[in-house]
């Protein structure tokens, strides 16, 4: 693997990490900071602020991680650094 490829691979990996941490930040902190306001909105029966704390954020985290593993794997394959199957 050339030095340039190494840099490019790490650049893509880092961008992916930062993107996921941004989404994580919103659902870990952002939505809970505004929970009282969100509670005025009803989401299939739940007050929305409560829903995010009880389920919404959790669902986002799970979906996000399966997506992340897929995306990181695609990057590794593209640069030929994925492990053999």
């Amino acid at each position, binding site marked *: 693997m050339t030095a340039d490829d190494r840099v490019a691979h790490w650049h893509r990996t880092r961008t992916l990490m930062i993107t996921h941490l941004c989404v994580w930040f919103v*659902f870990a902190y952002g939505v809970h900071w505004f*929970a009282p306001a969100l*509670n005025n909105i009803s989401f299939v029966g739940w*007050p929305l*602020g409560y829903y995010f*704390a009880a389920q919404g954020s*959790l669902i986002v985290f*799970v979906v996000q991680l399966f997506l992340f593993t897929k995306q990181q794997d695609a990057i590794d394959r593209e*640069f030929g650094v994925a492990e053999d199957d």
Partner: protein
Amino acid sequence: MALFSFEGKSFVDNLPKIYGIYTGGFLAFFALMAWFETLGMSADMIGVLFLMFTIVIYAFIGVLSRTMAADAYYVAGRSVPPVFNGMATAADWMSGASFVALAGGVFMGGHGYMAFIVGWTGGYVLVATLMAPYLRKFGCYTVPDFIGTRYGGKLARFCAIVVLVVASFTYVTAQINATGTIAARALGIPFEFGVWFGLAGILVCSMLGGMRAVTWTQVAQYIVLIIAYLLPVFWMSIVQGFGPVPQFAYGDAVARIMELEPMLGVGTKATESVAGLGVLTTLHATPAEGALAAWKFVTLTACMMIGTASLPHILMRYFTTPSVRAARNSVAWSLFFIFLLYFTAPALATFSKLQLLDPNLPTAIIGQSIDKVMALDWVNKWSAIDMLAIRDSNGDGMLQINEFFLRADIIVLATPEFAGLPYVISGLVAAGGMAAAMSTADGLLLAIANALSHDLYYKIIDPKAETKKRLLTARILLLVIGALGAFVASLKLTGILGAVAWAFCFAMSGLFFPLVLGVWWKRANRPGAIAGMVIGLASGWGYLIAVRSGMDPWLGLDHLRFGIVGAVASLVSMVVVSLLTPEPDEEIQRMVDEVRIPRGDTIVSHH
């Protein structure tokens, strides 16, 4: 015995079948107990049989997977497939606190308490994106092994061992406390004996087989604990008419509680007090107003998340997968299996509360006559052991919301009785709680013993020690630390949840930044990492002591959140000291480059 070799392709291929048969066997046992109950077997006997049956199975797996090979002992031969590693991690993760106390906390504390739920799941995003794949590529046996190799030198390794021991030992006493409580109640023995009984069960599973035994018992424990947690919730949901998928349908139950709360006067303080117990005063779904409340929610969440990504017993689970990709996948599966329990916990709390409050349900007690409530079986049973109390404060003979005192920790264990479910469900729940506490204690004891035997004894004290001697040391240490943990637990210094939160804060104060920056910042060097660990742990710990001895917390950062102070101090000192000292040599820089790509050999190779 090929089926029980616990390694190799045929064993891995057979895993779904093996655990499928196991799950079927467990459900058959449950059905048998249910049948025995209809024949008139006593409730106590059912409880004892549930505990005995499950513990014997864990011990059986533990003994069968005994090993004398270092790779199998420390990292289960690096052959655990992602889905099964996910289940094992979930069991390792979900402790007595998650299983027994979490839903009770939501029951009593409402929205504010859900910071734990968000924190204990969101932390895995950090584990997957920042840590697990890279630590796996390193090929280390333990977390201090990573620190020692990345930064070099015995001092850095030693600092990591200290943080690991402080955090894990704090955590393990809480788990042994939980096993002791459950054993004491189910077997009718004093708590001080219950603690030792629980410890014996824990040790059989981990002593002979190390990580390999712990992995395969934890998978078995996960299956028991998730069935035990979900079954009563599904049952209640169907009985109360919310349909078979309660997690997606209990919004109406939340709405109904919000409607009932003003009618019942939730929020009025009790006029009497009962030691150790409380009445329901917090609204179920309404968050506390104001910036400080929001700040407290997000800081608690942050502590639980960053702590998750620094806890050695969790990180070391990802050293057991066959590849870097498998480590990444395995984090996603871990979170999925953890999620199954956590997104059900608020549903359990909601249904449980509705059972007691809603006057339209036959199980309601609020608003009923005190004499009638006092005659209930479960009220008698739980008040006999001071976990519940009823006082007619205003003397009108009816039970008001602020006359019903209870301890939050009993909610999960007592909900089947609130809801009038058969006793066999309570026995199942006790077995699930035991599985949760045992599996976490297993993982923690192993993390401590491995760090001491591998990093302290082998890498620092006697690098020439033979494998046999190292593994023997690990086993002796396991016994000693377990005994010490049981002794401390029998002193009952703190509650379960307080000790758990402290463990997270200790871990994040000392380990988070040295681990993350070790991968993501090439410039990080040995003096920086040592400063980060020492100053981080010292300032976190110092702040905790200061707050406990009466200092006003800064910005509401109380003793559950001291990790924020420690982690900030750790980051600042690590960056400053790293920049003031020479950059790491070329060999280390090449090593970091190598860690960043999945392909190729691991950095460390053990012999």
